[in-house]
């Protein structure tokens, strides 16, 4: 059954085509088209997954695509444990999110277009997962980027959403440019673009490192790693199911997947891998600290995603391929769950500020409890899925002997548990902080929550884990400590924010709550100079270029006027003079034309008579 894998992305693409062309006629049916397509993909993915575990991996060719200069490129499909796992995650999470969207997007006026984009998004991601060469991957990669732009700025009437879409697109484009250069460099250096050849490339280390780092640039952009992480928090302007899809299954997972897929390239030379590790560590720590002070429910989750992705990169960077990809899978489930819960909460209370919520567990039972499960999973409480993957990452970092990175990872895990339970305690427990008429969401939204909660609990058992009691104890202790800290600060103390702490570390607090001023630095160093340059260019345009054009026009007008005068008085004058001379001459001779026929006859007769006379006299 492995041979059917290439049908998986085709169904979402077909659903996209149907919904974008006939969406108006389909109306609410468009959701069923998309969900049906996703479900068929899910079934095929499941069959492929089972088949793969029986028959092992393999890639196969669908057809010849390009052939030039002795090099050919095929449409190929890769089926290996990594792609199978991700196919399952994307189809399961994607289908559930689309079901959830029926409820969430119920009253939206671009309902069918939303589902069309969701299908395109899923199709692109599935295509990306199945690609067996860089060119196909790049095409789908850009497809994913395009869909993220379309969906983040889905409510483009709001300027913030439109700006967020642009920011996401441009920021990821910066990374994509690196990826493209990396692909081209790889092609020129090795004449191959297939992933299967990456393990044994015969080129020197410097080139290899440069290529690996350029490809990593693409992953940094897509997976929102420092320094290109700025787009992801702003992407929260999109509808919440989109955030869930971007954060869990599609967009950001693509970056980690790219690194995992091209792992051979990174393994070949360790200097590139250590970059991945440090970028991941910086991102994980930075984003986690920002999440601890943010007040927007979706932005906390967004920074959490950045942090967790940094965690995965860190794992991949120290050589923990299994831990990184395992965490990618478990994270997809619980992050989708958390986002959908947040969406359900926002749907109910119509605000995103966590300090306006409170005590929601009583009013929204299903959402509240699943939210709690998701938080426990991401915090790494045993035996939920997040525990297993995080534990594996921690032990891998330690095993590879990176004490600094291990310290960062431990602190990040602690912070993760802390900020998640800060969120949970503030939103779900305590008393309502403002007048909210919260109500439970409809079943079409809560049922996907339940399913995702089940996955969040049990996804950790999909993979056999080595049993290391000490490491596991440390890992569990970290999460419990984090939760305890949150409990102490937000339940016991029950103040809006722990004010004394904030006062003591005022500088740190300002630094973190302003997101390390990264946006401001970009604004000052890149955006503002660019704008100024654009202004200069614009004024050059309006003064010099436009001036030259206007001068030309002005000179043309003057030349035209001169020519007009010449035409009127010289050319026309000559013509009129000729006409006038003719007129004057004719004034004499027209007197002969009396109009009286007998005059003519008389003239003719006298003329004849004269001619005869001349003949008679001249003849002699």
């Amino acid at each position, binding site marked *: 059954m492995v041979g059917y894998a290439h049908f998986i992305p085709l169904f979402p693409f077909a659903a996209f085509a149907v919904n974008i062309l006939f969406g108006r006629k389909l109306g609410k049916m468009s959701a069923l088209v998309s969900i049906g397509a996703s479900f068929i993909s899910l079934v095929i993915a499941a069959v492929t997954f089972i088949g793969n575990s029986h028959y092992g991996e393999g890639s196969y060719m669908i057809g010849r695509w390009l052939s030039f200069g002795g090099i050919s490129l095929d449409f190929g499909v890769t089926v290996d444990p990594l792609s199978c796992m991700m196919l399952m995650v994307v189809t399961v999470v994607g289908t559930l999110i689309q079901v959830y969207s029926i409820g969430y997007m119920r009253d939206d006026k671009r309902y069918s277009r939303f589902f069309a984009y969701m299908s395109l998004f899923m199709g692109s991601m599935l295509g990306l997962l199945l690609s067996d060469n860089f060119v196909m991957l790049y095409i789908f990669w850009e497809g994913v980027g395009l869909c993220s732009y379309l969906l983040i700025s889905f409510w483009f009437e709001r300027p913030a959403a439109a700006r967020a879409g642009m920011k996401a697109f441009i920021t990821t484009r910066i990374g994509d440019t690196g990826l493209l250069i990396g692909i081209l460099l790889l092609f020129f250096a090795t004449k191959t673009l297939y992933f299967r050849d990456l393990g044994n490339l015969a080129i020197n280390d410097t080139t290899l490192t440069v290529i690996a780092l350029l490809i990593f640039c693409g992953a940094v952009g897509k997976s929102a790693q420092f320094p290109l992480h700025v787009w992801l928090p702003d992407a929260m302007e999109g509808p919440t199911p989109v955030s869930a899809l971007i954060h869990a299954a599609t967009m950001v997972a693509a970056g980690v997947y790219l690194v995992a897929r091209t792992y051979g390239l990174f393994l070949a030379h360790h200097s590139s891998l250590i970059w991945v590790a440090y970028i991941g560590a910086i991102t994980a720590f930075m984003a986690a600290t920002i999440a601890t002070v943010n007040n927007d429910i979706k932005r906390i989750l967004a920074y959490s995603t950045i942090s967790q992705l940094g965690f995965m990169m860190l794992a991949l960077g120290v050589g923990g391929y299994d831990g990184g990809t395992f965490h990618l899978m478990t994270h997809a489930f619980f992050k989708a769950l958390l986002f959908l819960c947040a969406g359900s909460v926002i749907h109910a209370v119509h605000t995103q500020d966590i300090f306006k919520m409170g005590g929601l567990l009583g009013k929204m039972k299903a959402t509240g409890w699943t939210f709690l499960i998701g938080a426990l999973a991401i915090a790494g409480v045993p035996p939920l899925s997040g525990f297993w993957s995080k534990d594996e990452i921690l032990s891998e970092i330690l095993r590879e002997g990176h004490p600094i990175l291990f310290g960062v990872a431990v602190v990040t895990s602690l912070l993760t548990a802390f900020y998640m339970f800060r969120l949970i305690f503030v939103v779900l427990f305590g008393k309502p902080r403002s007048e909210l008429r919260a109500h439970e969401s409809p079943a079409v939204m809560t049922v996907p929550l339940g399913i995702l909660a089940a996955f969040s609990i049990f996804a950790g058992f999909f993979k056999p884990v080595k049993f290391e009691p000490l490491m596991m104890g440390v890992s569990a202790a970290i999460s419990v400590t984090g939760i305890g800290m949150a409990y102490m600060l937000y339940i016991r103390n029950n103040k809006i924010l722990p004010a004394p702490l904030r006062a003591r570390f005022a500088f740190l607090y300002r630094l973190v709550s302003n997101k390390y001023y990264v946006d401001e630095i970009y604004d000052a160093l890149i955006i503002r100079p660019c704008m100024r340059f654009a202004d200069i260019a614009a004024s050059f345009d309006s003064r010099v270029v436009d001036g030259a054009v206007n001068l030309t026009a002005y000179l043309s007008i003057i030349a035209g006027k001169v020519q007009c005068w010449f035409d009127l008085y010289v050319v026309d004058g000559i013509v009129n003079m000729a006409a006038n001379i003719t007129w004057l001459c004719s004034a004499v001779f*027209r007197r002969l034309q009396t109009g*009286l*026929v*007998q005059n003519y*006859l008389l003239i003719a*007769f006298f003329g004849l008579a004269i001619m005869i006379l001349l003949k008679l006299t001249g003849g002699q």
Partner: protein
Amino acid sequence: MIPQSHFLILGAVLFAMGLYGALTRRTAIGILMSIELILNAANINLITFNKFIGNETLGQVFALFVIAIAAASAVIGLVLVIAVYRNMKTIFTEKMNILKW
């Protein structure tokens, strides 16, 4: 036998009458009639010279042609006069000056 000069004098008188009529009549029909007189004067001359000079019938045949042509030209002329009359309600030639400058 009537001398040749009498015939020629008759022709000349007829021609002069025709010419006078053509130059003085006001109506187009009068002018046409005068032209017929001129043609007949020519015919008389043709017949006369045929009789007194040659012994062949060339002049007579020529005269017959002239009669036929005179008939045709009279027809055309009358048609034109009728057409002009329909348009201008007059047959006076001094009124027919619309092509004048």
